[in-house]
C-alpha cells in the first residue's frame, strides 16, 4: 500500500499526531502514547527530534524506524493531521 503523503486542499497551520511507543521504546519514553502538535508540513524526522527532546527519550535512535498509519515510511514523510505515528523498535516476533 502506498502511504498517502499529500495534504488536504484546505490550508492548516498545525497538525496533531498520535505517537505510539512499544516495548523498549515505551520504557525509554515513559509513555505508550503522546499527542503532539507540529507546524503543518512537519516531517517524521521533525517529530522524532521533538520526541527525543523529552527526558530519557534521547536514548531513542536518531532515526528510528517509524510507521505512519501502519505502514513503514521514510523520515522525510510529511505528517498529516490525525496521523498515527508508531515508533518501531527492532522486531522480534516468531
Amino acid at each position, binding site marked *: *500500500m*502506498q*502511504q498517502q503523503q499529500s495534504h488536504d486542499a484546505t490550508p492548516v497551520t498545525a497538525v496533531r499526531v498520535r505517537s*505510539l511507543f*512499544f*516495548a*523498549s521504546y515505551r*520504557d525509554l519514553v515513559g509513555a505508550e502514547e503522546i499527542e503532539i502538535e507540529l507546524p503543518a508540513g512537519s516531517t517524521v524526522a521533525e517529530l522524532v527530534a521533538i520526541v527525543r527532546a523529552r527526558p530519557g527519550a534521547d536514548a531513542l535512535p536518531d532515526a528510528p*524506524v517509524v*510507521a505512519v498509519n*501502519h*505502514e*513503514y*515510511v521514510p523520515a522525510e514523510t510529511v505528517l498529516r493531521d490525525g496521523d498515527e505515528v*508508531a515508533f*518501531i*523498535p*527492532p*522486531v*522480534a*516476533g*516468531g
Partner: protein
Amino acid sequence: MFCLITSDPIDPGDIMSRVRSDADGAIVLFCGVVRDHDAGRPVVGLRYEAHEAMAREKLEQISADVASRFEIGDIAVVHRVGDLSVGEVSVAIAVAAPHRDAAYKASREVIERLKREVPIWKRERYADGDEAWLDGQVPDTASDG
C-alpha cells in the same frame, strides 16, 4: 487467508483446518514454541507485545504477497501476545498447496518475513528473576510503498 494476533492459546489443529481444501495435497505447519533457554541462559517464559492492528495488516500483506508468488491454496498465520510459558506456541503458520515444494517454500518465506517486518517484540523472563527485551532486528521496511 486468516491472520490473527491473539492473547488466547493457539490451537495448531484449528489453524491447519482453516487452510485445507480438496485441491491441496500438502500442508506445512510451522510452530514457534517458547523454549527453556536462549543463548545459553535459562528462560522461564516470554512476554510478547505487538502493535496489534499493524501486525495483523503486515501479516495480511505478507500472506497475500507470498500467495501471489507461490502456487499455494491458502495461508493462515496466528501470533500470540501476552505472557507465555515454556512449551507454549507463540506463532503458527499453516500453508496448504497442491504440491509440497510450494508449501514448504511459502511457509519458510512467511516466517522469515514475519521475523523481519512484523511489529512484535519479545521480553524474556530468566530463571534468575531478570527480564529483558530481546534484541530484535531493525525491521525491513522495503516491502512498503
